């Protein structure tokens, strides 16, 4: 038996590392990957809570036991959509500005 808080702390550590990567990295692709890391961290806590509500059922009807796993599914769909559009934007930016450094992309146009 693993305390639920362990999963939440792991999730928190991964999320903070994702935020740190988002702020510190200058390469636009790595920044994007940091966002994916944050989404993954959130998914972990969703699954942990889904398991928790599955093993500790409550009378409250507003809590659907497996909904955590369904939310992970939605997060993945959003992440996939985001990756497709984001990478297309990155390719478009690279075509015109020839760089992936976010500090060089400082004009309000492509």
């Amino acid at each position, binding site marked *: *038996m*693993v*305390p*639920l*808080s*362990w*999963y*939440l*702390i*792991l999730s*928190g*550590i*991964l*999320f*903070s*590392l*994702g*935020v*740190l*990567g988002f*702020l*510190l*990295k*200058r*390469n636009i*692709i*790595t920044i994007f*990957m*940091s966002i*994916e*890391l944050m989404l*993954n961290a959130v998914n*972990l806590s969703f*699954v942990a809570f*889904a*398991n*928790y509500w*599955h*093993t*500790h059922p409550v009378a409250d009807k507003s809590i659907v036991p*497996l909904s955590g*796993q369904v939310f992970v*599914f*939605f997060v*993945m*769909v*959003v*992440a*996939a*959509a*985001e*990756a*497709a559009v984001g*990478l*297309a934007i990155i*390719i478009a930016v*690279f075509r015109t500005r020839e760089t*992936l*450094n976010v*500090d060089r992309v400082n004009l309000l146009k492509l």
Partner: protein
Amino acid sequence: MVHQVLFIVFGLICVAGAINLLVQRHPISSALSLVVVMASLALIYLLLGAEFVAAIQVIVYAGAIMVLFVFVIMLLNAGAEERTRGSRMALIVGVPGVIILAGTVGWMLVSGSGRLGGVNLVGPSSFGETHAIARLLFKEFLLPFEITSVLILIAIMGAVVLGKREN
């Protein structure tokens, strides 16, 4: 006991991979360490008994999204990251901010964890079963599910429009 040891092992791999993502200068090394994080997260989902989520974690995240990242890095032939003024600014402002964020999250979790119990290793019989998730997805969450398909469609069209060369 086995559950705890496995959790600690894969949790440490996750954290090590995430730190490596920050430390590495070349985007492809960062991408590969993110793949490691995702794979060990999939194993943690298996520990939680969520086998369907573990499978789609590998198929969608590690197998599709990250392959796309690696593909774009290869396509653009991206080199190692360069240091600029912006990175120093981010370092000065960002690191304390993240420490405060991590501290707050950690404090909330630890102070609230007394009320939370533990999670068990649930057998594959009931928890992660694909049927149960499908039933929930197509009955209770039908509208959000349909909306995500519209979202995906819009994303595809957006990617096609952005990817087109302007003549």
